């Protein structure tokens, strides 16, 4: 006998009867599903292996685990990351590619992250924090929060009128004065909407869109921050670009955290959004830790990463004449060389990296005062020029997001 075709409830013209049939069918379906689930639960109660097998099999497909292949991913297992090139069995458990590691170790952040051993790892790098021109109270409040997050951060207001200077020039001056990073908080219509991180002296500049800012006062039962160096957790930075961004954030904080401060700053990357959180933790047992959120909460999204400092296009400057390079040292060279020499000298004067400034000065009593002052002057004169044009290591363009599963960090 041929199978009887199931009749559609939508074919019933009488509304009351139709609704009745639909309700009955839905109820039946629900009861069948419940019966099925109860049977599975009963079977799993007796045999936990079944549950394990079911959970392993039924992994939901999300945008995160269906991510499009990005050739720049740096993973521990080269076999898994490359869906295209053939790799031998030998490469399976070798770890990330040594050339990628070499490239990472030689990037512009390496001098801050693997510094010469005599530098104190507890001293925070100098960070200059400023706003966009004509900022309002909103920016200043957010900057106050950032000052508590980043040890070593100094806030300077932007100048008004003629004293308002381009960000590229600010970065050049800050680099000459020994700052490690410049952070510019951009404000638009009473809302902080972007953050620019400029690594110095010649390092990459990154522009992030800033959203979902929640100041600590708005977080219920928030903790109070202390001036201890926080620990840093960087989650899910997978690609080469992600590594660059992660290392950039690493250079903001001192190398050695104060563990007794029990503060931790987390930057969690998920689908190219960076979630910033700051917590205070306390271990309740050796396995479990309780967290209390301290500081501001915000979300960042990388828009572009430039290779050098922000460019300064000085189109109005007087044109220099045609000149020939005679050779021999120029002033610029001298300034830079002496600064480098000075750096080494001042490091050599202190026997260990952890000596205080006072001790240094006591030791230097016997030294020639004049010589030291001269060196200090030359140190201050170190000139860093911003480039004439920008080069982008990465920039977001809408055409790059071919599918919803494409991510770059």
């Amino acid at each position, binding site marked *: 006998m041929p199978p009887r075709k199931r009749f559609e409830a939508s074919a019933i013209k009488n509304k009351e009867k139709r609704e009745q049939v639909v309700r009955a069918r839905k109820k039946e379906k629900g009861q069948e599903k419940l019966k099925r689930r109860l049977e599975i639960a009963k079977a799993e109660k007796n045999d936990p292996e079944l549950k394990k097998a079911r959970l392993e099999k039924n992994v939901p497909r999300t945008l995160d685990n269906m991510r499009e292949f990005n*050739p*720049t991913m740096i993973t521990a297992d080269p076999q898994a990351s490359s869906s*295209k*090139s053939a790799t031998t069995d030998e490469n399976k458990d070798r770890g990330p*590619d040594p*050339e*990628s590691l*070499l*490239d990472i170790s*030689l990037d512009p952040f390496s001098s801050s992250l693997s510094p010469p051993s005599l530098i104190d790892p507890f001293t925070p790098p100098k960070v200059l924090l400023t706003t966009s021109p004509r900022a309002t109270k909103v920016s200043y409040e957010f900057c106050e929060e950032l000052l508590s997050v980043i040890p070593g951060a100094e806030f300077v207001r932007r100048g008004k009128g003629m004293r308002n200077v381009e960000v590229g020039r600010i970065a050049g001056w800050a680099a000459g004065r020994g700052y490690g990073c410049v952070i510019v908080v951009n404000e638009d219509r009473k809302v902080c909407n972007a953050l620019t991180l400029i690594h110095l002296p010649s390092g990459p500049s990154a522009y992030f869109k800033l959203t979902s800012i929640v100041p600590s006062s708005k977080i219920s039962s928030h903790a109070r921050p202390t001036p201890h160096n926080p620990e840093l957790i960087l989650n899910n930075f997978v690609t*080469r*670009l992600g590594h660059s961004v992660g290392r950039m954030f690493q250079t903001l904080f001192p190398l050695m955290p104060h563990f007794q401060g029990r503060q931790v700053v987390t930057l969690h990357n998920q689908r190219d959004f960076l979630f910033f959180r700051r917590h205070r933790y306390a271990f309740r047992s050796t396995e479990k830790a309780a967290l209390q959120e301290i500081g501001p909460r915000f979300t960042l999204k990388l828009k572009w990463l430039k*290779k050098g400092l922000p*460019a300064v296009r000085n*189109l109005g400057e007087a*044109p*220099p*004449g*045609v*000149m*020939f*390079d*005679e*050779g021999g040292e*120029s002033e*610029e*060279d001298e300034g*830079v060389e002496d600064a480098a020499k000075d750096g080494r000298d001042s490091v050599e004067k202190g026997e260990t990296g952890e000596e205080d400034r006072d001790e240094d000065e006591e030791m230097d009593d016997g030294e020639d005062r004049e010589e030291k002052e001269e060196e200090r002057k030359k140190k201050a004169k170190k000139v860093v020029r911003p480039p*004439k*044009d*920008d*080069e*982008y*290591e*990465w*920039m*977001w*363009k809408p*055409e*790059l997001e*071919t599918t919803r599963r494409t991510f*770059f960090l």
Partner: protein
Amino acid sequence: MPTFYAGDELGQTKRIRWTSPDQSLVETIFEREGAKSAMQVMDLRSGMLLTGFADGNASLFSLQDSESGKPTLIQEWKESRLRSQHRYIRATINEKGAYTCTSSGHVRFVPLAKNIGETEETIPSQVTSIPTRLCDFRLSPSGNSFAYGGEEVDLSVWDVDTAFTARGSPAETTVAGQKRKSKSSDLLPGELWRAKNVPNDFLNLRQPVHITSLLYLRETTSGSNHLATGTYSGSVRSYDTRAGKRPVTDWKSLAQKGGIKLMEKGHREHELFIADMGSELAAVDLRNGRKLYTYKGLSGSISAIALTSSRLLASTSLDRLLRIHTTTDLPLKDGGAVEEKGQILDQTFLKSIPTVICWDGEVNSGDDLVSQRRDDGEADDDIWTNMPAIEEGSDLETTGKHSKRRKASHVPGSDQ
């Protein structure tokens, strides 16, 4: 199966063999010992590879007859006049020898060694000085002249022989730092021709001179050189040394972001590829200065491009990817739109930032992608010719307003 040679910021030389989409073999063929110094310039010609590094060293390799696939070093030298804030801007190989130029205007000609291992002491290299603050330097296709341009240094064409043999320092003729008189056209000894700045803009302000890239479009035996320059403001200008000093054409705003970073001449007539300081790579029609197409999907600034004879283009960018692109024919009519746009065929992750790339010049039989696609087109044509044609006045023909339009692109059976 084109093969490319790329240099990167760690000073490594890599060979990339691209066989088909999704399959490219990358191998590092040479690594410098000691401190890593970025490769700034590279040139490849008839099996010889010339590389220049940030610390001033330059090496000439031979890529032929090596069993292990590694290059053999023929010569190496160091540009001692190169200082920290300057860099190599161009390296070219000729039949006569190797030419390198720095942004400080130090040009060096190293004749080719007859035996391997001869150093600078045994073969004298000829040096000369041209103005400083240069951005680009090119040797003409015949090797008789060279041209340079830079920041407040206008396009200038020199004769190669006179430049090297003239006198020791051209600075003797001018005092360093003094502005040239605009009215007198005194050329430096060795200089054949110098361009004149474009007229003042609509506010009667002097337009700044800042050439960021240049190339020879054509060189005729009668001494007429056609050159093209890309500027800091994003315009592409073409010059004819015989026609005058002002540019023949000045196409403004060809760069989307910043200035024109790179320019390369395509193998087709009137084809030019430009890369700007953002992440744009575009093909330009030299007849009218219009952008024919831009390549979609680039995320970082282009650092170098290399063209093959089989209508492929390889580009390296700062996001550490090497991309292979197709290039398409220009429209037959001047001012028309291009039928098909260039596409990105493949991208390969090179683990460090590549700075230079060259094609090895070998044409393989299976290379021509264009011919492959033409075969597909012929197959399509067969389908169309085999379909039955609808006669006029038949039942299937549409009537009314649409009939004329339909006739042009009538597909049998589509009306039903």
